[in-house]
């Protein structure tokens, strides 16, 4: 089966307390590239170097930290209409709305809805292509493996988010039954295996495109993650974060779930970021991997075999 329907996480909109320190972090330390500003709404748009579309991260200055919404690119305007109708028909989501084209620069219309865990999600089909600046004889012609002038950690792409919320079953139903995601890994209660406390969902060949952990809260943000090509680059990320006195949460280490190599750190407003490498190829016919809550330690941090104090209690 070729990749159709929902293609990938296309953007994440993050609230920051002060735009300038946030921008410095996201461009100079994390190493994203600024592509547009919207001074009226105090927003800045950024992309990672290997993303072709106009932006994948939106920073908005606000009084609260956290996530405004996450956007998913679908394969065509026809798919956008179909999935929007499917979401509406499912009656599982709230606050359905069409956001007009151009509200994000270079972006077509977006269909927004709130999933049962309280997170706003969007679907869209069109975004201007800026390219990855690697072509040597014109855009995308005889490309270099990576462009000049990268700054900071310089991940290749925005990869996934981990979100916290209460109605995990309802949100899983939206992603699996309506949007066509597969379940790559799950965490179940050993005493009651019908109760899922963690879900790792994929719309692609990645080990996850989004993950949720059941918590008695609505709409909370654990982290936004960005991809690096190797374990050594994760170590180098640790060097860069220390050099900039960035608040590091944990790592470099390895996740049991997805097998990713990781470092967690915080932006200047306390929103958690991750850069990671590794994982595996997911196919839709792969059986879900199951972890039980009594192995949550190695599932989350494979080397320490225990969750650090902040994993479950620190989020925005």
């Amino acid at each position: 089966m070729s990749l159709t329907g929902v293609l990938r996480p296309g953007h994440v909109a993050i609230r920051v307390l002060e735009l300038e320190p946030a921008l410095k972090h996201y461009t100079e330390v994390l190493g994203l590239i600024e592509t547009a500003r919207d001074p009226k709404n105090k927003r800045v748009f950024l992309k990672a170097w290997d993303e072709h579309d106009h932006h994948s991260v939106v920073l908005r200055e606000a009084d609260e930290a956290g996530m405004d919404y996450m956007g998913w690119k679908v394969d065509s305007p026809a798919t956008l209409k179909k999935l929007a109708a499917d979401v509406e028909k499912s009656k599982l989501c709230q606050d359905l709305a069409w956001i007009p084209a151009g509200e994000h620069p270079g972006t077509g219309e977006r269909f927004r809805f709130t999933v049962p865990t309280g997170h706003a999600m969007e679907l869209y089909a069109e975004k201007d292509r800026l390219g990855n600046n690697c072509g040597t004889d014109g855009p995308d012609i005889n490309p270099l493996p990576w462009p000049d002038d990268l700054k900071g950690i310089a991940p290749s792409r925005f990869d996934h988010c981990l979100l916290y919320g209460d109605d995990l079953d309802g949100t899983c139903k939206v992603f699996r039954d309506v949007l066509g995601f597969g379940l790559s890994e799950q965490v179940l209660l050993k005493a009651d295996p019908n109760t899922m406390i963690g879900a790792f969902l994929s719309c692609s060949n990645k080990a996850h495109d989004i993950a949720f952990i059941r918590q008695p809260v609505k709409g909370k943000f654990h982290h936004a993650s960005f991809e690096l090509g190797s374990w050594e680059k994760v170590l180098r990320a640790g060097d860069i974060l220390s050099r900039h006195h960035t608040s590091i949460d944990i790592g470099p280490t390895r996740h049991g779930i997805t097998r990713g190599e990781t470092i967690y750190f915080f932006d200047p407003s306390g929103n958690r970021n991750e850069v990671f490498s590794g994982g595996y190829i997911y196919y839709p016919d792969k059986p879900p991997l199951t972890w039980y809550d009594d192995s949550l330690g190695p599932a989350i941090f494979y080397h320490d075999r225990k969750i650090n104090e902040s994993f479950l209690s620190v989020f925005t």
Partner: protein
Amino acid sequence: MPHLITIENSGERFTGADSMSVLAAMEQARCRGIPVGCRNGGCGACKVRVTSGRYRTGKMSRAVVSVADEATGCVLACKTYPESDLGVEALGRVLQPAGPRPGASFSFVIPRSEKEA
């Protein structure tokens, strides 16, 4: 000029400079009375009530420190800078092992400030 900071719950005392947050001074002194979270004003783990002394604050997320909180001296230690000797009382999460509790439906530990909200 260094100021003496006292965490009333734990009885820990350490000194902190005007330019250093109460939380950073606590970490530097290797004290543990205030829970450490994001260190950047977003998560609320290090919420304290200032019981005595003068201080100034940086911007804190309204999701974890309301206007009313701030008016009663409830602030985030990571965004609080001493201007005199300070007494503080930690209000953040109570540390508990994560996992299901016997006889209760499954619930992870959340910051106390959210439970109270």
